[in-house]
């Protein structure tokens, strides 16, 4: 596999960006400056990164309640994201959406979603637009293991399969839906097994190996672009933090968490890049420092931004 150096470095930068962004979010949430429900992606960075490394600006994604990683990977602006989390007027949604509803339609980001399973049919519709218009755009639908038990999963995969839509369904199997172990929430070991119900490829990949994700997603996206229809791609991964900020995670053994922390996708990729001779340790440090500064700026932007004014509350309900 010959991936350009530039792309490899982008992947590294992107994973680091997600990690540092979210660690900062956790801090500001704990400090009471970020509001509402915040679901962090820490530990799962390789998935969004590996998938989106294959996407173009004009491709679409639908995201989930755990959306920051997807948005960053699809090109989301850190300042606008942070300002939104801070509830400010300058945020992506003018403060109206918050973490669970960040979107950037211009970038093809059709929104995080507070409804588990809400994105399945929406991504399918975006795929339909591509096919209807005769373009080679694709739509990627991110979703969790828990979400795959929702009826919309079935309906969307079925529709995308019969219409051969360019939709890639990317399952982020982090082994839990809140406290519900995937082992208990479904009777099959792999979400990918469900592809059989729609006669589409079902692929399992190590979701903490960004290059493996990149490659597998690349295949699926190529298939979609060339008119061969949807794929169900399952990325096995793990979230290091609670389901939402504040969750004491009584439902999973500490050892399990420790085991997975050994498979942290970022140091792992950093090592690989070092071995490839692409990234020396000091370069990696420099990148992290640089990104940390970008996040400082995003926080500063957010903190200094005005709150929405009260009259704005009734704006944006209807389009003219």
């Amino acid at each position: 596999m010959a991936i350009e150096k530039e792309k490899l470095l982008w992947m590294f930068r992107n994973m680091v960006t997600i990690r540092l962004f979210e660690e900062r979010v956790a801090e500001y949430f704990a400090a009471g400056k970020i509001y509402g429900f915040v679901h962090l992606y820490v530990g799962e960075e390789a998935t969004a990164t590996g998938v989106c490394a294959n996407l173009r600006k004009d491709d679409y994604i639908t995201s989930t309640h755990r959306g920051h990683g997807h948005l960053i990977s699809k090109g989301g602006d850190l300042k606008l994201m942070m300002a939104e989390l801070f509830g400010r007027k300058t945020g992506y949604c003018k403060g109206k959406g918050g973490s669970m509803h960040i979107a950037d339609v211009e970038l093809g980001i059709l929104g995080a979603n507070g409804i588990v399973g809400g994105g399945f049919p929406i991504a399918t519709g975006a795929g339909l637009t591509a096919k209807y218009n005769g373009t080679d755009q694709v739509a990627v639908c991110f979703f969790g293991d828990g979400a795959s038990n929702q009826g919309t999963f079935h309906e969307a995969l079925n529709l995308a399969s019969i219409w051969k839509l360019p939709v890639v369904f990317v399952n982020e199997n982090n082994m839990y839906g809140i406290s519900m172990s995937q082992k208990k929430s479904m009777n099959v070991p792999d979400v990918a097994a469900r592809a059989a119900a729609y006669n589409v490829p079902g692929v399992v990949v190590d979701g903490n190996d960004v290059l493996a994700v990149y490659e597998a997603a690349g295949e699926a996206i190529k298939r979609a672009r060339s008119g061969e229809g949807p794929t169900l791609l399952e990325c096995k991964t793990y979230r290091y933090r609670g389901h939402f900020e504040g969750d004491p995670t009584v439902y999973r053994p500490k050892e399990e968490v420790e085991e997975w922390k050994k498979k942290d996708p970022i140091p792992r990729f950093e090592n690989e890049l070092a071995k490839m001779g692409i990234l020396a340790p000091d370069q990696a440090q420099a990148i992290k420092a640089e990104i940390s500064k970008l996040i400082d700026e995003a926080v500063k932007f957010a903190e200094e931004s005005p709150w929405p004014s009260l009259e704005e509350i009734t704006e944006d309900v209807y389009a003219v």
Partner: protein
Amino acid sequence: MRKLTMLKAINEALRQEMRRDPKVYVAGEDVGIFGGCFGVTAGLIEEFGPDRVRDTPITESAIVGSSVGAAATGLRPVAELMFIDFIGVAMDQIFNQAAKMRYMFGGKAKVPLVLRMPCGAGGSAAAQHSQCLEAWLMHVPGLKVVAPSMPYDAKGLLISSIRDNNPVIFIEHKFLYGVEGEVPEESYTIPLGKADVKKEGKDVTIIATMAMVHRALEAAADMEKDGISAEVVDPRTLQPLDNETIVNSIKKTHRAVIVHEAVKFAGPGAEIAAMIAEEAFDYLDAPIKRVTAPFTPVPFSPPLEKEFIPSKEKIASAVKALLQE
């Protein structure tokens, strides 16, 4: 002028808009060769082909949700739910996704989507195929709700709905499909949010919706013989509601009777009554009456179903009781 049934008027509106704008497509169960359960989409697949007249599986969440995704990315879907009674399996995509997307995204999305859905009793289709559920949809910020009573209105309002940049619920009372009326051949629009006074009068204002507009007009004609002059107002659009036309009528008549087929409790007439009680209280000479179905699921058996649907007699007697106040 040429007369058309409401069914044909709706079909013509779809056809004309599909001709005008290649982004408009139709989707739903059996909308293709079958022409839809009631025949509303008949002939469209012959003219526009299966890409623009999309037969779907039985999958209402995906019908609505894929339309939301398609609308947000530039198409203009007109999706059909075979019966409004089926919204229960697709409600999330209607109220949490389609309706709220724009607001949640800070005004940065546009969801130009029409959901057509037949409603109403009258054919012994029983409890799960006969409901009037417009009240739910009226309660959702971000949706518009259109509910015509006449072929002319149906055509003009549907064309406006398709051109609107918001999700519009277009409710078709299935027992109006056969009603005939004058309908211009050319394309025309009727603005959403404008009520229509179907009959002028001075003693009482009857605000009626969909099939009940016809019952109200019949009751008004009957009462005319008794010297009672009833004004009949058809809101036509339930969200936004044209408060002004309703209030103006009450300023003249000082009495209001609201008629709908939906059950009374927390029904569409509750909002109309509450609005009047808030905005036109000083002009009222009598309580606001509602004539509606009883608070039951729609029964199957013909005599029970007939009893369920408000009749012109019930409307007239409500009016007369009010005039005695």
